[in-house]
């Protein structure tokens, strides 16, 4: 009887620890720094875009990023979705959507130039 109770208690504690771990991962907040800056990729120079609208996780209002600018988005949890609109002369010239996951680091750097050029390392922890 006493033994059974101990086991139940132990399981409960373990479950609580498990829940905590899950909460830690899904609730972890991150900074996403979005760069629209001139970059050299594989020896090719890629210029900054004139104007970019970034929608993070289905936000209705975009984050507006000018040429050579860096903006910050606050995100939480591991799974994210991003929609990028590259504007030229005030019109949307190119739209791009991506899903991505992030680790437990506090801050990530996202390079618009690399994502558009299709490079793998467009998201780096910093």
């Amino acid at each position, binding site marked *: 009887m006493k033994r059974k109770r101990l086991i139940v208690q132990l399981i409960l504690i373990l479950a609580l620890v498990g*829940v905590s771990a899950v*909460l830690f991962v899904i609730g972890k*907040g991150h900074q996403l720094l979005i760069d629209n800056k001139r970059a050299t990729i594989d020896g090719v120079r890629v210029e900054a875009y004139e104007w970019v609208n970034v929608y993070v996780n289905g936000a209705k209002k975009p984050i507006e990023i000018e040429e050579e600018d860096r903006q910050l988005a606050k995100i939480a949890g591991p799974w994210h979705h991003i929609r990028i609109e590259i504007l030229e002369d005030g019109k949307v010239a190119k739209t791009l959507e991506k899903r991505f996951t992030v680790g437990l680091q506090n801050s990530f750097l996202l390079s618009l130039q690399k994502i558009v050029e299709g490079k793998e390392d467009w998201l780096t922890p910093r």
Partner: protein
Amino acid sequence: MKTTGKRSFKNLLIAYAVPIMFIGLSIFTIPLSGFSPEYLVQEMVIRLARNSFLVLALLIPIIAGMGLNFGMVLGAMAGQIGLIFITDWNIVGIPGMALAMIISIPISIFLGWIAGNILNRAKGREMVTSYILGFFINGIYQFIVLYMMGKAIPIGNPALVLSRGYGIRNAINLEGIRQSLDNLISLNIGKVQIPVATFILISAFCFFIIWFRKTKLGQDMRAVGQDMEVAEAAGIPVNKTRIISMIISTVLAGFGQIIFLQNIGTLNTYNSHDQTGMYSIAALLIGGATVSHATIPNIFLGVVLFHLMFVTSPMAGKNLIGSAMLGEYFRLFISYGIIAISLVLYAWRRHKEKERARMNLRGNS
């Protein structure tokens, strides 16, 4: 026949003297303050959501006959430690709040266990003992947060730690979890915003308490609250039951403080818990509860009346006397004066009840 009717009306008046007094006072302060009904309703809804849970934590010790648990500040401190950790780890939103609650549980259980054991050695003087105990644990809390955190307990976030390298800053910005529960399901009626999720949580705990009273443990607690010796003779482990009631109260107070602070949005590291015990108890008393008897409606009535007075009296005082500062003193005078009166009334009422019981006894014999 007529006399008994008159008497029962008088008894009712005596039983609800404090709420009636407050309602009477509110009738004057509300128009004097000049606030719009919208603002007052919104303020009351916010305060119901923010404070009810803390007041709920007081119920179980009252059932167990331990009086008003001034020691609930212990739970409040445990909740705050949970909040400091999640702010350091940058866990945001509902998961952050839930994690803070989970962190607070073991600390609350430990503190509640200590408090229960001490109160078992001070039977009959629980209220004053728990009040002083709050100060004692506050000292330990300050030692841990001001000297241990940052060095002995690793805290990495420079926005939390004083620049000398250890100790937590005076005020912590809880932006990550600010109003995450309140805004989870939010309903607008007219211009009044109602934090539905918070109220769901509060009502869930109301049902928990109703259910709890009917369990074996709840029945034991009532028996202990009625008469410890009789309960002991009936084979109920009195001391253990009292410790459990303290533990439950402390854990709930920790949750309550987290709900309270997610609404406030800023944690005053060394002071936020100071007044939780006092204000919750005041609200409960004003709702018509006594040291030995409290119900769930007492909580909601008390929170509304107490905070109505809190919101309207400074402005009413200012408009009445004409000086901003005197308005503030008017609020202090009214709020704390009423708390004192309600305690005196309780003593007086108990005296009357005893007298009546004696009269009845005489009449029967």
